[in-house]
Every structure is written in structure tokens, then in C-alpha cells.
């Protein structure tokens, strides 16, 4: 579905590549998590896929078509994008935010209204309560649900998500990521999700791609990564959830000791 070939990006004035010779394949219906520390190039990679950033070299194939040959605006309208900072338009109501891409695609009004209703159900928000509210009147979790609905509005086949749950409190975060996994499966989406949280990656991902300093270090299922980490960096990274689980278990034992 998505094929990145020798993808390289160097920003003007930078001393080294932000992304270097990246090769990655994402299958249709797959949820791929792109993980790494901040500054490793994972967000830049995501931005290049819908051409918010243009690559310096390499190519991107979307369903066997060269992304570079397409009109960038059309390309973006065909994909859903969820941002870490949510990026809801503060002057538009929840309903208007969700409807924005269908509106840009000039859908008829009744079709947009019907679609917005569906989306409220899909992201489990009460339409009657939230429809006319402004983003600033919502909680962080509600905002991200609206952001998700907005990204899904024009029925994209591909979803790009940039640390979508990063700024949420843990309860909301678990709730919403479980909801998203269900939506992904139900709609048969192809998703690339960027995060730096290995637990989240393992819970959500069909496959995980680890990046460091602009390069792809290893890719595979969570199981493969745990079983055969490519190097010490990956090992430390993938063992984080297990290490924390153990630490947690010890803390619980100490606490419950008489």
C-alpha cells in the first residue's frame, strides 16, 4: 500500500540528513508504528508521505502510484492526518472541524451532514452535546476524538498519526488507543502511527519500525523485535515495557507485604 524507497531528507542549512536512505513497506490493512527518540526523523518521514515536507531524494509509492506525480493537495485530502497538537481550527465548531475535508472536496451538504453524524458515533462522542461547541470548550481527550473524526471524514484508506495520544492523561490514552485500533480494523485502514512510547507501540502495532538518527534500525512484529533485537539500542528500547512491568510488580509486592 505504501512503499518508501531510499527516502532522504536534508533540511536547508542542516549539517546532516534528517532522514537517510529509508526503505519501508506498509501492507494494506496494516498498522505500522514508527518509533524512536525525539529528533530521529519519524515525524519528518510521516510529513513526507503526504508531502507536507518534500523529500531531498528517494520516492514514495502509494498503491503503486508515485506520490510525487500527484497534486499534493489532492494527495492530502485522500489521507487522514492526526496531529499531536490536535490542530483543531479554534474558530470553527466541532461539527465544522469534522466537516472540513469533505467541504474542501465539495461534497453535497446533505452527504456531509450524514457523514458527520456517523463520525460522532464512530469516535463515541455525543453529537447533540458537542456539535456546536468550539474546540476550547472540550477536554484534551474529546479534542483528539474530534481530530480523529476530522481525519476520517473523507473516508481515507490511509491514516497518518503523529503521536496522537501523547498529550493525553493515561486513562484517556488507553481508552482512545483501544478505540482507534478497533476503528482501524473495522474500516480496514492502513495506518502509520508515530510514537516514542514502546508500550503503546506493542499494544497497537501489527509491525514496528525503529528509527535512530534518521535511519531505519529494525522492523518487524513486536514478537520478532523482542525475540531478536538487532542491536543494543533496540534491545533497551523493546525491553522498556517489560522492565517497567517488573518494576511495577516489585513495587506492588513491597506495598502488599505485611
Amino acid at each position: 500500500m505504501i512503499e518508501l524507497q531510499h527516502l532522504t531528507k536534508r533540511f536547508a542549512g542542516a549539517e546532516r540528513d534528517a532522514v537517510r536512505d529509508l526503505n519501508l513497506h506498509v501492507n494494506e490493512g496494516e498498522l505500522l508504528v514508527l518509533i524512536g527518540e525525539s529528533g530521529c526523523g519519524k515525524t519528518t518521514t510521516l510529513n513526507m508521505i503526504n508531502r507536507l515536507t518534500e523529500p531531498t531524494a528517494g520516492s514514495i509509492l502509494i498503491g503503486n502510484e508515485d506520490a510525487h506525480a500527484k497534486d499534493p493537495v489532492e494527495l492530502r485530502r485522500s489521507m487522514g492526518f492526526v496531529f499531536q497538537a490536535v490542530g483543531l481550527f479554534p474558530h470553527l465548531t466541532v461539527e465544522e472541524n469534522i466537516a472540513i475535508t469533505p467541504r474542501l472536496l465539495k461534497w453535497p451538504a446533505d452527504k456531509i451532514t450524514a457523514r458527520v453524524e456517523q463520525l460522532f458515533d464512530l469516535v463515541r462522542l455525543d453529537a447533540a452535546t458537542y456539535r456546536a461547541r468550539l474546540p476550547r470548550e472540550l477536554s484534551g481527550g474529546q479534542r483528539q476524538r474530534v481530530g480523529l473524526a476530522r481525519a476520517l471524514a473523507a473516508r481515507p484508506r490511509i491514516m497518518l498519526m503523529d503521536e496522537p495520544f501523547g498529550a493525553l492523561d493515561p486513562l484517556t490514552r488507553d481508552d482512545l488507543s483501544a478505540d482507534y485500533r478497533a476503528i482501524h480494523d473495522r474500516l480496514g485502514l492502513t495506518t502509520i502511527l508515530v510514537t516514542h512510547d514502546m508500550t503503546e507501540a506493542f499494544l497497537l502495532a501489527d509491525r514496528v519500525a525503529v528509527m535512530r538518527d534518521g535511519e531505519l534500525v529494525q522492523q518487524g512484529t513486536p514478537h520478532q523485535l523482542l525475540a531478536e533485537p538487532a542491536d543494543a539500542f533496540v534491545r533497551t528500547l523493546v525491553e522498556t515495557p517489560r522492565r517497567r512491568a517488573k518494576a511495577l510488580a516489585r513495587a506492588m509486592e513491597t506495598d502488599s507485604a505485611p
Partner: protein
Amino acid sequence: MIAAAFAVLPGYLGQHVLLSISALVLGLLISLPLAIVASRVAWLRGPALGAASVIQTIPGLALLALFYPLLLMLSNFSEQVFGAGFRALGFLPALLALVLYSMLPVLRNTITALVATDPAILRAARGVGMTPRQSLLLVELPLAAPVIMAGVRTAAVWVIGTATLSTPVGQTSLGNYIFTGLQTENWVFVLFGCVAAAALALVVDRLLALAETGLAQHSRAKVIGAAVGLAIVIGASLVPIIGRAGAPVVIGTKSFEEQYILASLIGDKLRDAGFTTSERDGLGSSVIFHALAADDVGVYVDYSGTLWADQMKRRDTPDRTAVLNGVAAWLKQTQGVRDLGSLGFENAYAFAMRRDVAQRYGIHSIADLATYAPNMKIGGDYEFFGRPEWAAVKKAYGLNFAVMRQYQSNFMYRALQDGDVDVIAAFSSDGRIAQYHLQLLSDPRHALPPYDAVLLISPKYAHDRKLIDALKPLIGAINLSAMQHANLMVDRQTDKRSPAEAANWIEQQLH
């Protein structure tokens, strides 16, 4: 006096609002696109804001004054090239100056707001598939709207205030109260003009503030309320000036009371004959003549000696009749201007002294003055010392004063009474000469030309029978004492009358 002020309010307010709104709208049409371009093209920001700031430092009156000669030049040029000129006086120069004046706050606020748009929002706008144009129209401008609106508010208040200064370039505005009031020492008028302009500015400011809050709070009700309020204010102000039948005859006045009285008299005569009229008040002596020749002004009263010296550049001083005939012939031949003839009185430059001072020195004529001049102070109006008459008198009598001071004409008489100056260049038709018992000095060497008040008609109306018939009865009908009395009615401090009332008084004398 208040009633007289209210009587002309609809016309003044309407013109003021029309001018301000036109300037604001045109200003916005220029500033907004410029600001949008400048928010995207970084190198343009400095020059655009710099130019707007420089314009802001030019005094409003000077900016307005600069546009008249500029437009006159352009008009002459277009007349030569395309065979048609345009009106260089009145609405156009006022509009252009105010447009420039309105630009800075809108430019500054729009650029600031657009440049400061949250990058996360911009990324989201692109991410959902907006073109740069859609991002601007659907996201950036709506988000910047409250800040832009604040700029528009500032611009509106500036423009409404500065529009009062458009009176001297011939555009009627609420400034007419202030300028007329200043000339005739009618402080009620001055105050009325200030209050009216301030009230208008305040109301518009409050309504725009409501729009600004409405935009910031996304309250459609507030924005609509503000729009409706503005529409009411603008609509109500413009009603008196639209739907007026026919193009009005423009009556010009120079900036002193006699001119206001005569303009009012001429206006009454023309309106009685079925014409509509408008006034261009307080024009400069040369500006008004060129405006008449260019048909920007239809009718006004000038003085034979002024035309003789200023326009014909004659330095000799023949007798009254010769000057009158010479002026009329010259006007007809070279300018196509019709000189209907003398109104019947002279308003000459005349040297005047306090009677007691004149007696102390035994001064009766300008010739006597020459001996004492080196120890004396002379006062004149803004024009006099720059005029050829002054040069001629100085030369003829060898006058050389210790001090020369310039005054607004009504302050000049005060200065003479208070002894701040010893002699003034007064006007013979001035009512205050009799009121203050001033001694007029004779001119034995005939250095000063005669100044018969003559009624001039612009080329457009030069053969308009109806207009000429309406004004003919004024020719030879006003004698010097009647004019002095009418002038005094307006000038005096007690039982002060408006120029319109003084005009009515003259009219009663005519029958």
C-alpha cells in the same frame, strides 16, 4: 446659534460620513491585500510599514493641502492628453489623503496577526488538504480577524477625526463648523463641530468594538448587531445628501466672515430660483480662483484689486472703474469667467490705527506713518505681507517697520486694541473699524489698488440665463455701510449672529 448649527448638520454629517466611509473602504481595499502579500514576502514588510509610518508623521492638514496642487497638475495633464480634466478640489484630494492616513493601523495589525498564526494550525490546514488560498481564507484571516478589526477601529477613529481638516481643500465636513466658527469667533460652532465629530467617532468606534468582540468570541449575534448598527449610522447620515436633484451649484468662500455672509446670500438667491447648492468653505485666495476657472466652484465673490494684482500680475494702480473694466475683460478673454459686476462696496486693504495713537503722533496718511514706522509694530493677516500690495506700499512710502506680525484677522483687531501692534492692515468693509473707532490712513500716492467686490461665475454657468437672472439683483445692491453692519453682526461678541442671519439681514435691506 445652536439652532443654526443643527440646521446645517444633515449636510455636514452626510458629507463627513460619505468621505470617511469611502476613505476607509478604499484604504482597506489597498491595505488588506498589501498586508497579506507582506505577511508572505518578508522583505516587503519593512518598506510597506515604513512608508505608512512616514505618511502618518505628515500633519493631516499638510497632507490634505499637498493633494490639491498634485491633482491640479494631473488634471491639467489629463486635459492636455485626453481632452478632459477632473475636479482637483473637494472630495478627491480629501479622499486620497484620508486613504493614506487610514493605512498604517490596518497594515500593521494585519501583518502582525498573520505572521503570528500558530504553526500547528497552519500545518493542520495543509494536512487536511487546504490550498494556500483556502488556508488564508478559511483559517488565517478568520483567526486574525479580531486583531485586524482592532486596526480598522483605530483607522476609523483617525479618519473621522482627520476628515474635519478637509474643509480648506473644499470638501464639506463637520470641520466646516470648526473652520467657520474660528473665522467668525463663533465658539458655539467650533464646539458643536468638535462634539459632533467626536460623537461620530465614538459611535463608530463602539460599533466596531462590538464587531471585534463578536469576531473574537465567535458570536454571530454581536457581529450582525455591529453591522446593522453601522448600516443604520451610515444610512441615516447619507439620506440627506443622496436623492438631491441635479448637480448642485458650488458656492466658494475664502476664509473670512464677509465671504460666508455673501455665500449664504448667493445660496438663498439660487435656491429661490430652484437651484440646489453646495458650499466649498474657507478656500485660499488663489486656490478659489483656479477652482472657479476649472469649474470646481461655480460662483464666488472676489475683489477687483486681488484679481488685478494676483491673477493679472499688474503692478500699476489706475482708478476704480479702469480696474473693474480691465478685470472683467481679462476674465472673459483669458479664463471664460463671467464677471457679473460689483456688488456695490469695496473691501480694500486699508491701514488702520487706534484713534488715540494716531492723534498722538499726528498720523493721517500712510505717508505720515513712514517717519514712525522704524519704531512701530505692524499686524497683518496671513496673506498680506506676501502680497504685491504690501510690496507696492512699502516701495511707494519707504515703509520699514520694526516688527511684522501675522494674525488670524479677528485676532488682529484684538492685538491692535491691546497695543500689541501699532498699526494693522485692515479691511475697509470690516465692521470692527467703526466698532473700535479706528482711524483709517489715506493713501495719497495711490499705492493700493481698489478692491470692489465682484461676483464671478465659472465658465460652465457663464451663459446660464436662469442663474445669472437669479444673481443679477445683487449687483450694485450692497453699500459699504450695509456690508460693515452685516460683518459686525457676525464679528461682535455680544448679540452675535450667524453668517446666515447676517445674510438675511442684508436681504431685508434689499427690499
